[in-house]
Structures are given as C-alpha cells and as structure tokens.
C-alpha cells in the first residue's frame, strides 16, 4: 500500500512552497532531495550534531528531527538564503576572515547557530557561545576559530 500523502504549505527562504508529502518524510530529506537545498547536512539523524540546523519560525531547529508535515504553515530559512542574495552576510564573512572553516561539512549549521546565539544573547562572552554551540559538532576545528568568528560578528552587530 502506498503511503497516503499530506498537503503542506509553508514558506521557505521567502518563497511559498506547496507539496504533497508522506507523513514519514523528514523535513531534512524534503529540503535536500525534494527542493535540492543541500546546505543542511545529514550526519547523525538524532539531533546530536547540528549539521542539519535550519531556522524554523525564527528559531534554530534540527531538521532531521522534524517531519515535513509538522512544518506545515511554518516559515523556514536555510543557509542558502542567509545572505539574502548578497555574497556573504556578516556572520559568514566572519567565518571566512577568522579561518573558522576546515572541511566545511558542519559549517552551515555552525553559521546558523551563530545567528541564533546573537539573537538570544546580543554580545555573548566566549563561554556563552560555547554553551550554545554545544549542539553543533565539528570534527576538524576544535571550535576555537568558530567561537572567534561568532564573537566578532556579535560585536559588530
């Protein structure tokens, strides 16, 4: 028996999107495979690593732990739209300038978590940045230069 489909309507990166999806479809897979928005990555599938982080209704969430049907009516923003058509936004530029990137697989999630940290704390100290970054795993950098970039971007804003 084929899975029944559910109609969802949502806004993704400022564009209205309608789709018929099975209840089982994860939001991450919907973004990556149905919409070809591959910035969010699939690493752990259990909310441990933050590589699939996106903004949903103004807050960062793990898109691997959300069903597409659950996102019905929501407003999503993915890494692809963070700079709103500009080359790089301040956070992204800070990641480049502070040498925060190595392999880059965790970086879209890190950049978005950096945005959330500024939203929540304004000008956070390094310990606060580390606290709130702990849902994003990086295997390359040891986090120090990522903390540097977020601290700088927060100061600048």
């Amino acid at each position, binding site marked *: 028996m084929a*899975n*029944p489909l*559910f109609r969802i309507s949502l806004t993704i990166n400022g564009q209205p999107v309608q789709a018929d999806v099975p*209840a*089982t479809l*994860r939001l991450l897979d919907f973004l990556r495979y149905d919409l070809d928005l591959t910035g969010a990555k699939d690493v752990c*599938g*259990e*909310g*441990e690593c*933050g590589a699939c*982080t996106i903004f949903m209704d103004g*807050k*960062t*969430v*793990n898109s*691997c*732990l*959300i*069903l597409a*049907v*659950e996102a*019905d*009516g929501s407003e999503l923003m993915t890494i692809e739209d963070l700079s709103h058509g500009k080359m790089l936004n301040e956070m992204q530029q800070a990641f480049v300038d502070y040498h925060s990137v190595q392999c880059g697989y965790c970086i879209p999630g890190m950049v978005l*978590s950096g945005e*959330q*940290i500024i939203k*929540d704390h304004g000008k956070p100290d390094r310990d606060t940045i580390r*606290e*709130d970054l*702990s*849902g*994003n795993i990086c295997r390359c950098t040891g986090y120090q230069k990522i903390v540097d970039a977020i601290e700088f971007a927060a100061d600048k804003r």
Partner: protein
Amino acid sequence: MDFRTISPQTTEELLEAIKQNQGKHFRFGAGYTDLIPELEMQMENGLIVINLAKLKDSNFTSIFLSEDGIRIGALTTMTDVLSNKHLQKFPVLIEAVESFASVQIRSVATVGGNLCTASPAGDVSCALVALGAVSEILIANGQIRTVPLTEFFTGVKTTVLKKNELLRSVLIPHQKSAERILSGFIKIGNRNSMEIALASLAYHITTDKNGIITSAGTAVGSVAETIRYTESACEFLLGKNMDQLSEEDKETFADNVLKYANPISDIRASAWYRHQVLWNISKSIL
C-alpha cells in the same frame, strides 16, 4: 517507517481523534525529538501519529500562574521554560533545562514529551519530581484527573497514562515562603554537554530565617527504572538546621538518597560508578 498523521487544531478535534483510534495503534507526537529516531529504528507499520504541534489550546501551550501554583502546559517547549519569569525562582528546574540537550532541541522539545517519554534519565522530569509537581491528565471524555509526579512513572518508558488519556499540564504547587532556598540540578555525564545523565540529582530545599529546613524535595535520575523521589532523604532533612549539619548528617542524607538507587551497568557507566557518584554528589550539596 510507515505511518499516518492526524493534526488536531482544537481540543475537541483532539479528543475525537483519541476516541476514533482507540482500536488502533497510535502515538502522540509533539517535539518529535525522540520519536523520529525511534521510528527509524523500529520501522513500525500501520502506526498513527496524532500530531500535537498544531493544537491551539492554551492549557497545553502556556505557562501561567494560578491560585494553586504555576501550571506548565505539556506542549510548552524547554525554551519557553527558560524564558518564563515565574519559573526563575526554581533554579533546580532552570538548571535541569539548561543541562538538557542543545539550543536546537530545546526549542522544539516539550515538557510533556520529557515526562511522557518516561526516561529514567529525564532531566526536566527529575527536577519537576523534586518540586513536588502534579500531572494533570486529560481523559477522552473531557475530564481531568491529577496524579502526583512521584506516582506518574511506572517503569522504563511507562507511565500511568491510559490509552484514552494524555498529559495536558503539570502544576508546581505554591511553595511555603522561605527565607533561603538551596536549589539546583547536578548531572553527571561522560562529557560536558549533550549528555544523557549517568546519574543526576535534583534538589530544592527551603529554610526559615533560623536556617531550619522547612521543606525538602530531592529526586534522582538514571539510577533506577524510573526517576525516583527520595522521600526518606527529604524527611531526614526536615527540621534540621541547614548550617549545623554534621559530616554524619550529610552522610546519612546521602545514604538515604541511595536507598532509591538500583542502577544498572551499561556502556556509559557501571552500576558501581552510578552508586558511588550519587553518594558523593548527594553529600556535596549540603
């Protein structure tokens, strides 16, 4: 993984969905932070998920002050708890939420989800048990019944909830006015964040102006089949002077906490470790 979802928007629709599906295999979905990995592992077929994410009922979704205490809706998220001004006077709860998972998970994981998952390691559940909170359960016929959280958990991942019921809210009863509060949450893990507790201790103790302990609530996590309220440890403290506890008193308190521990050994830690560390941290809080 194969299932259908129903997304009720009102309490009436919700109750109807529960009634309609009594003969079927269904589960509730709220924050989904545990549900999706579980479904991926188990590949249950024919499952119906009653999705609570769209429910618009403030009893479920809000935190508010009432005559009998502070009521936390089951669908309030961990982020909501952290930012609520009424709840700041319970450091045990705030610390438990802060130690819980990540920013991303806290913004979708719900208080009700943490309780109904009934994990012996539930951080927020442990804090609520220490605070003497009461569960308020909505029955499909529209009535409410209440069960103290000390009796809410019946085993690993099981609760008193029946198939025609769901958790609507928890009530933290008003506490006696206190001169001093000793309140906190200690979570022991194998790393400094994003951990499932190897052992945890929630405590909320109040004294009068002379330092006499007037109320004590302590609960332990990850050391038994369920979160346990450590009643005899709490009773032991009542009436004692907080500032004059002897080394022996502190050890008797820790011994009493341990009466509720019956830990297992697993890949995270041995029963021996959980036992020993719980005793050590219990003694250390006084």
